[in-house]
């Protein structure tokens, strides 16, 4: 199964994860 997030954010929003990275609930995914 898969979860797709689509959201609006300021242009300086930045993902802090890498493609293929294992993540867990509550782990930081992005910052502004």
């Amino acid at each position: 199964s898969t979860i797709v997030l689509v959201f609006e954010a300021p242009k300086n929003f930045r993902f802090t994860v890498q493609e293929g990275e294992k993540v867990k609930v509550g782990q930081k995914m992005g910052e502004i």
Partner: protein
Amino acid sequence: LSAAWRDTPTKWYPLPLAVGALLLVAVDYRKNHLATEVHVDEHGNEVVRLKGPWQVHVIGALPLKNLSRLWGYLNGLQLPVWFRPFGFRLYAWAFGCNLEEMDPEDLTQYRSLGEFFYRKLKPGVRPVANAPLVSPADGRVLHFGTVHGSRVEQVKGLTYSLDALLGVESPTNSPPPSPIEFPHRDMATVHDEEFANVNGINYSLGHLLGSSTQAKSSEGQPPAPQKHGERIDASVDSESSLGDSISHDASVAKEMGVRPSLQRRGSISGASVQEGHSLFFAVVYLAPGDYHRFHSPTAWVVEKRRHFIGELYSVSPYMARRLENLFVLNERVALLGRWRYGFFSMVPVGATNVGSIRINFDTALRTNLRQRSRPPPGTYTEAVYSAASSILNGQPLTPAEEMGGFCLG
């Protein structure tokens, strides 16, 4: 043969360059146009078709939904108590499940594989980062980036339509936003400044009225899918005490950083973003051994959900790299709402082995149903959560709050 090879004269003559150039143009046209060719219906909405290499068409010919329901039935069968520890340890070994962090740890308490699959975690095993966006689930980041135009990149080189993923708001669907009415104030409407001064606490007035509730569709029956969604206003009955809903929704209102708008912020799909903002996307893939409940990725308010009855192709990275429009073809529940920066949506997408999607605050939702005729892709049934917290105009959620999960079958 060797004589023919040796004696046959080799004649060289120039290939006209034009033939080579034409060949390159034809290859380029096929790659850039046919691959991204978009078929539209009479409403101008993209008609989503199964596209991809032959493996995809072979898988598409299988009765995936029946297989999924059979898989769910088998995994719902009660297992003998003596077998459970051995059976679940074997599954955990095969799929890499972490048995130490689940609650309860006693494997004999899970009557079936389906219950084990939908296990909970012990409190505290998932600390929540102090960040605007946190992961909604355990899994692997499949892809992420910025939405260009209205196309979302599935993987490098494959894109799908954002409108096809979230559904297009049809004009008949969006009634004009209505001012909040408060029965105990003889139907007067509350103005913004009053909202802030109630009891001197800047929290949502809606909690003085309603309380966080279980949304139920008015019919109580799984709604029949309508073309482009039929508005099902969730009728609610308050089930939780006023106290906890004030603190819960107040924390969401506070975290959202802005006073929740008394009026709906206009249509939220089709996402017209504010000046200086962009639309971003991220895809998290949950493997069979992962913990399969999902949580809120931020403080946000879910205003509505759109349930798309689709197929149940596997969503493994192998398929995501081959089957174009995978997330738009599959059964999914698009939760639409807003967070402090504007539009926010979260779309759990089902797959062959996990065709059932559960939303804790939406008991009317039924997924992976037996269908006589498959509705065309893009058809959805819509429910709104405006009564869950009337002033927030939707279901408020705090970061990492459990929202629901994927069940086997």
